[in-house]
């Protein structure tokens, strides 16, 4: 399954709930304000790093760039553009949005 998270982890529990619901082998795509969860040295970096053990974490590069944080992304996060977003939707059996 593909999960999308569009909320900053610093103001919402969408990411937290998403990671609880994301079973092994699924992909979590951070979009819109959700991309702030990709920042290295942040208070959620450890959570993300742990999640990477079982799920793929991806982030929408245009959203990172727009927010001026493209060069602050932690290692191991897969960066995609909108075309890559479409591919993720098609490669997985369904998409769940954590709004």
């Amino acid at each position: 399954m593909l999960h999308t998270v569009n909320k900053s982890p610093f103001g919402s529990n969408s990411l937290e709930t998403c990671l609880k619901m994301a079973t092994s082998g699924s992909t979590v795509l951070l979009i819109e304000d959700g991309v702030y969860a990709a920042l290295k040295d942040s208070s959620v970096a450890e959570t993300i790093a742990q999640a990477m053990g079982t799920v793929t974490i991806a982030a929408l590069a245009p959203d990172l760039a727009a927010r001026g944080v493209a060069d602050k992304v932690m290692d191991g996060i897969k960066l995609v553009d909108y075309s890559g977003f479409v591919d993720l939707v098609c490669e997985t059996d369904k998409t769940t949005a954590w709004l």
Partner: protein
Amino acid sequence: MSDEMMDEGGTIKKFAYINRKAPYGTIYALESLEVVLIGAAFEQDVSLFFLDDGVFQLTKGQKTDGIGMKNFSPTYRALEMYDVEKLYVSEEALAARGLTADDLLVDVEVVADSEIAGMLDEQDVVLSF
């Protein structure tokens, strides 16, 4: 697939409704319920999941006179008549909010998040509100 699942030659998909928002503060809960009611006519395999603040949609004793809005919570009790019978509530979300199943106005299955994760994996279409 049983005969029942093949009626009118239509596809039966597993539809999940994820409710994570409290009622009244925003319209999502009400309009999600409206989708469930209309969707029932399509005779799909429907499950409703109440996670995070979504569990507040189901609390007993809602009285909305004072805020000038319609109390739509009785509708959850009517879902059974629409053959929408699979209501799952996150055990952790309830506990975190100081609630138990006794505080809810309709019969639900209280399930651990880890179990809900597995149930979501089995769905075909997930609608988020």
